[in-house]
């Protein structure tokens, strides 16, 4: 049923490429040069594209990457079995097509016949199996091990066919397997050198291969001649430069030392918006900061206190203050309207009296005190905590805010402390949020909610394939979360980036991990280097 027709036509003409902008709102630069103009023009080949990123990768293994730079490198060097498109559906990558059985427990993937490693070797089902095996091996230590679905076993049918079975029904497997770390690597490398072989320059099958490597300073990528789609990449070379300091990155971009910033912050974005010839790029996403509140700790175990807190927040003000307006208001729903079964039973607005009444009801008429913990990265965590602290004050919330280094946060706060600000990226499936964070047996169950009714509904939703029934189940689930308020989620944060107007056609994806830089090209007015 969840069959995907072989849509090889994704690689298409320029007009079609427009689709990749998806939900992104390409803002016009002050110069009046619209990205549309570039989109209409004929793609030009050649040139070197320089892109700034904030970190340098730890190593080159796609399985073990920790930061956005690592994800980007994985995308440049490797391909996945599937990829996730802008509508959060699975799209072909190495697999041209796939089909599932009716119970959604067995999936058959058909690989492209023309996929080759840099070394010239054919990419086969054995490579896929070896890659997934390596990912599932706890010793590999991949952060995505539990994200790619409940895979129980695999069967190599022939060179171009692989069957993947799951231990329980899992309709979203083709999406989950498109995880940013789940790249297909060479079985030969794994066999000869183990996972270690991937830490350095290893045989891969993506659109680029490594050029000059200076891992602490900059990385150069050159076109991989063996990449199956001979039209890409357009550029002759791609360079990643690291700027750990955000001001230094912004200035490097403004000076033209780099052509594009793949991610930027609100403050810089606001400045860049006013600069001629710079194209600011803004993409809505469903990523969010949550105030995570433990159900097993006083005083937030009382649902009335949680609800009271909801009514103290001026959510639009939070979007303005924390995000400089670059985001969408949320009403504590872990799902956003980007997902098909989104349902918002209630849209709480700031109502101090109501909050006070709820607190009084809970026996806290003299106010309630607790600490919100945050970590030192990303920056927004702290701001969310401060905003909540300040906004909740009039209702009688006496909140202390403490910031810890990330590792201390992980070891002492996360899943332990009464309240803390967590940060989550957008997930490819609705079910993914619930099963990873909110069910009693979720690997990262961070609220300790342990709600039987919720667990049962999730289990049922997973078994259910009928869309209308699923919609109903998800409605019930969202009503439950609206009632018990495991998280305060004030907004969904936009994803911001910028490039000079001569850079065209790379992707802004809501999941942020996909850029498709092989499709980027430089106009004639690009500086010659």
């Amino acid at each position, binding site marked *: 049923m969840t069959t995907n027709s072989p849509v090889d036509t994704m690689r298409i003409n320029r007009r079609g490429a427009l689709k990749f902008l998806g939900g992104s709102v390409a803002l016009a630069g002050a110069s009046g040069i619209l990205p549309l103009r570039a989109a209409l023009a004929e793609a030009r080949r050649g040139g070197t594209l320089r892109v700034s990123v904030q970190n340098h990768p730890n190593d080159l293994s796609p399985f073990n990457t920790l930061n956005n730079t690592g994800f980007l490198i994985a995308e440049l060097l490797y391909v996945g079995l599937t990829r996730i498109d802008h509508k959060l559906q699975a799209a072909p990558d190495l697999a041209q097509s796939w089909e599932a059985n009716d119970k959604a427990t067995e999936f058959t993937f058909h690989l492209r016949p023309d996929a080759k490693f840099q070394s010239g070797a054919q990419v086969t089902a054995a490579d896929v199996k070896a890659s997934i095996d390596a990912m599932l091996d706890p010793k590999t230590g991949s952060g995505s091990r539990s994200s790619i679905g409940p895979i129980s076993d695999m069967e190599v049918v022939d060179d171009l066919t692989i069957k993947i079975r799951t231990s329980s029904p899992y309709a979203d497997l083709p999406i989950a397997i498109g995880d940013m770390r789940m790249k297909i690597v060479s079985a030969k490398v794994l066999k000869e050198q183990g996972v270690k072989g991937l830490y350095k320059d290893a045989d891969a099958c993506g659109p680029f291969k490594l050029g000059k490597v200076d891992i602490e300073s900059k990385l150069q990528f050159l076109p991989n001649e063996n990449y199956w789609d001979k039209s890409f990449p357009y550029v002759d070379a791609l360079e990643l430069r690291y700027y750990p300091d955000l001001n230094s990155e912004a200035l490097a971009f403004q000076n033209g030392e780099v052509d594009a910033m793949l991610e930027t912050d609100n403050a810089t974005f606001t*400045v860049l918006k006013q600069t001629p010839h710079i194209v600011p790029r803004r993409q809505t996403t469903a990523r969010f900061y949550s105030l995570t509140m433990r159900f097993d700790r006083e005083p937030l175990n009382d649902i009335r206190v949680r609800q009271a807190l909801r009514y103290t927040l001026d959510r639009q003000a939070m979007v*303005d203050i924390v995000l400089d307006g670059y985001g969408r208001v949320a009403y504590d729903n872990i799902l956003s309207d980007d997902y098909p079964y989104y349902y918002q039973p209630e849209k709480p607005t700031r109502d101090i009296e109501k909050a006070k009444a709820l607190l009084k009801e809970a026996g806290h008429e003299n106010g309630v005190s607790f600490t919100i913990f945050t970590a030192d990265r990303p920056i927004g965590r702290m*701001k969310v905590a401060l905003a909540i602290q300040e906004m909740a004050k009039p209702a009688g919330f006496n909140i202390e805010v403490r910031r810890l280094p990330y590792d201390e946060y992980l070891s002492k706060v996360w899943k332990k402390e009464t309240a803390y600000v967590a940060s989550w990226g957008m997930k490819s499936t609705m079910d993914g949020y619930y099963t990873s964070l909110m069910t009693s047996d979720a690997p990262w169950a961070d609220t300790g909610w342990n709600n039987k009714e919720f667990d049962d509904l999730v289990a049922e939703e997973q078994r259910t394939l009928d869309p209308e029934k699923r919609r109903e189940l998800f409605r019930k689930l969202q009503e439950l979360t609206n009632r018990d308020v495991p998280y305060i989620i004030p907004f969904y944060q936009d994803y911001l980036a910028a490039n000079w107007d001569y850079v065209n056609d790379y992707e802004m994806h809501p999941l942020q991990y996909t850029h498709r830089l092989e499709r980027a090209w430089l106009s004639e007015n690009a500086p010659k280097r």
Partner: protein
Amino acid sequence: MIRIITRLWSHPIGRLGLIAVGFNLLLFIFGPMLPPYDPEAFGFTARLTGSSLAHPFGTDEFGRDVLSRVMVGSRNTIGFGVLSTLIGTTVGAAIGIVSGYFGGLFDEIVMRFADAFVAIPNLLLSMLIVIAIGVSTGNAILAIAVSFAPSIARVARSTTLTIRQTDYVKAAEARGDSTGYIVLREIAPNVMAPVIVEGTIRISFAIMLGATLSYLGLGAQPPASDWGLLISEARQYMLRAPWLVAWPGLAIAVVSIGFNLLGDGLRDVLNPRVRD
């Protein structure tokens, strides 16, 4: 004390230092008492505004009044610098004096460890300590104190070695005075001059280090108004709202130049070679 102050006053650099430190003292005492606004109150309507009559130093990203935050922050910042230096200096001086006076194997061991501590840059050492014992202002004070103590100990020790050879210490030993009296009464007060000079200058180092720890997320915690924290938070807006960095930066510069000038003045005033 009064003699030293009058001497400082007649010393050009010392006088500037006295003025600046006096100003800091006023800030320390009165700064937190008179802020025009609640330094933690958000202002939703006026965010990231520049200087105006209502907000002479402008407002930050939460619309908080920067002048108020700088004023309130003075006590935290100056207190932080003085306290961490005081602890580090006292402990360091005690170790240095004892080690220098008794000498021998004990001295050898203590000094090798002091050398080893000194070989690790202050910032690095205090970073590691803070991360190890947990991030808080108190721990940052402790960490900076620990990173200062060894070099102070070396200063105190070398002075002690000189003092130990003086006739008055010899005389005390000759008349059979107790070790305690000799160390506390005969040696310690004489070691203090260079230690105080060193300590005064280090107050500004401590403020810098504290600010840098805050920049790295290891120092004072928001929403406190510590100047270093103000700067490190404001750096994000540096291209858009440079005054957010400028005002607390200026405040730090005034304080730290003040203590440096005072320390240099003290060095001259307390130095017998330059005296008269």
